[in-house]
């Protein structure tokens, strides 16, 4: 997967530089939200993707955290605005605030925890009902490094993902396996056609995204 694409990785600064009319790069910005049961590794996935690190003692998320990361796909610079939400059920009511207007979501479960997989399914249902109709959803079976003690079978999750039109990968925030790849796969699936906005100025973009305008809702030139 994603052999032609190069992750911005840690060098996001260079890939994000603004072309001054000389290059033909397109700049796109997407809002992405992470959802899933507490302790499945949402924050860890984001940390791995954004900083290339893994902390065993990653602090639990209160409310939500916000980070950004930039990827390059061929001639397009894709910037993700990432909202990492808190997994405890009590924070569930704040989630719509974060997935409202999101163009992409990663729903995470822990492959050693059946409940977290059920929970992931509930999130997918909610997104299908409540989020933007054209949202790109990826399912991530995290902690794949612990696959010797897995409870959720790969095939089972894959089949579920196919039936529901989701991207699917098993990931490991710990080893880094498939972490960049899942973000890349999402970036590829998102529409990157030229839109009305220019310069990638962020103002207003999110709000416009609420409109059900499929053509122009998320890209900038």
């Amino acid at each position: 997967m994603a052999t032609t694409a190069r992750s911005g990785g840690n060098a996001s600064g260079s890939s994000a530089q603004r072309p001054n009319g000389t290059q033909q790069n397109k700049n796109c910005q997407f809002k992405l939200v992470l959802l899933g049961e507490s302790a499945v590794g949402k924050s860890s996935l984001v940390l791995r993707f954004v900083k290339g690190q893994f902390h065993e003692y990653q602090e639990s998320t209160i409310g939500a955290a916000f980070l950004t990361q930039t990827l390059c796909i061929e001639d397009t610079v894709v910037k993700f605005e990432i909202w990492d939400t808190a997994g405890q059920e009590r924070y569930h009511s704040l989630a719509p605030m974060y997935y409202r207007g999101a163009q992409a979501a990663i729903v995470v479960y822990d492959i050693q925890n059946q409940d977290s997989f059920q929970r992931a399914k509930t999130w997918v249902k909610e997104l299908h009902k409540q989020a933007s109709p054209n949202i790109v959803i990826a399912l991530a079976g995290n902690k794949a490094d612990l696959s010797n003690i897995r409870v959720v079978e790969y095939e089972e999750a894959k089949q579920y993902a196919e039936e529901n039109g989701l991207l699917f990968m098993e990931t490991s925030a710990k080893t880094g396996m498939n972490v960049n790849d899942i973000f890349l796969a999402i970036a590829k699936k998102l529409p990157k056609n030229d839109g009305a906005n220019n310069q990638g100025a962020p103002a207003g973009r999110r709000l416009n995204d609420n409109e059900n305008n499929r053509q122009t809702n998320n890209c900038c030139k």
Partner: protein
Amino acid sequence: MTNNISSKTITALDDQEALLQRAADEREAIFNRYSLGLDPKNVVDPWENPTFELYHITDKYGFMHDSRLPDTRDSQELQRTKIELERDKKWMKMLANWNPNNEKVRRRVFKGIPDRMRWPAWKKLLNVDELIVANRDKYASMLALARKYSTEVRQIDSDVNRQFRDNVAYRQRYSVKQCSLFNVLNAYSIYNPELGYCQGMACLAGVLLLFMQEEEAFWALNQLIIDRKYAMHGLFIEGFPKLTRFLEHHDRIMSKMMRKLHQHFMKHNVDAILYSIKWFFVIFVERIPYSLALRVWDIYLLEGDRVVTAMAVTILYLHKHELLRLNDMDSIIEYLQVKLHKNFGYNDDYVIEALERMMKKLKDLKLDVAPPAKANEFPVRPLGQFIEADIEKKIGRRRSEYTDNEKQVITDVILRSEQNAVEVQSTMSYETSECATGDAYSMKTYRSITSLATSPAVSSYSLYSNGFVVTTNNKLYNNDIDNNTTSAYNNGHNNHGNNYNSYSHNYRHSNSYSYSHTMLPLQNHTDAEVDYGHVDDLPPEFNENDANVDDDELSVQNTRL
């Protein structure tokens, strides 16, 4: 939630038995591990235990840092240690004749409780010793019940495993403090079943336990949650009613005192809920440097939740110019969530002085206290009476529907951001200078705000499909149970004009809140530089400009009114 049990088949009931058993086994297993604590029989996955790296430097609060702390700290530290020794003596005397209403106490708390005195001082401020005497054996019995009945074990366990692992006290898996934290939180979830456990409480208890013993921390936590002065119950219960109330109040202050910044935030969709949850939930821990957070805690424990309101505004005030220069949402949020934690840019004393002045200013403007709480922010049933959880909770099954409470939150949260947008829009149309230039940037902003404000069909799309109804906003302050508070809120949301007039009056004729040169002596710059390596957010024109900026804002508003 258990009422449709009749529709379940026998197998489902068997399943339920199995699920209950599974939950019980899990609870038992987790508790056993904490009982064993550091016993070598307690086998810990190697990955659960970060190795001790001795080259790490541990600061005086026990937090470890990646590199050596700068040497420059040493001389300063020495100086401070000297001062603290003097203060210790004064505090010992003061604690012996404790009277929290004494002006001397107040003054000294604002100066910062000396580190060694925090244990006795916090206990006094939170009435801990009295509570322990009055509730003999209560903690032990709650803990025993938790062992049998806690439904929050799994969440608490996974949060304890992640709380302050960069502090020596919590670094080792099942260390004494980790076990205490686990116990306190589980016992508390039984003691206050309407609250249970909410992420964020581990952080509060975690801080308390750095200064107290287990049982003391339990009662201290209870004070923070129950005592009307702090009333954090309403922050952490389902639906977060107090959070909503405080955010509304925060917005209100922003729109009156820092209009420009407020509009700047709205322009970039930076709703307060996105940056301030930790400010309210854990009193700034991990959002500002730990030493400063402790200073804020000192004052919070003395004065209660108005401190949080004031500190939130103080942070934004002190960093206003920097924030105004940041032109997108991610840099603004990054600044508030990450940068200020690493380097606040001002030394602690300076910030606390600013906080004190802000508290005074808010008081003058009658904005120091948020509108009164509704009944739903407080527990209904008496505390400490054991109630067995329902089956769903025991099994740990998730609800798939939002409760009415939650629907209300979603509606409130979204409404609030839309109101803000409307307000900004209405102001912007008067800010001809900004709009008339017609540059792509402001035009786009304008358009986007319009799209949000004027097309509810679009913005409320998701709400309607879930059966939420977005109502108009005048209800906001009308249902207060506590009508005896005569605040600016009694007339609801619509007396902007009046409030505003008194505000501008105060503002223009009062000097109490001007950050004049004398309040930001050059020496502070130097201090800060020594302290933090570099300071890039003290614009040279900080002081004079400040008054001007706000004056501009006022005149803009005057035109509008």
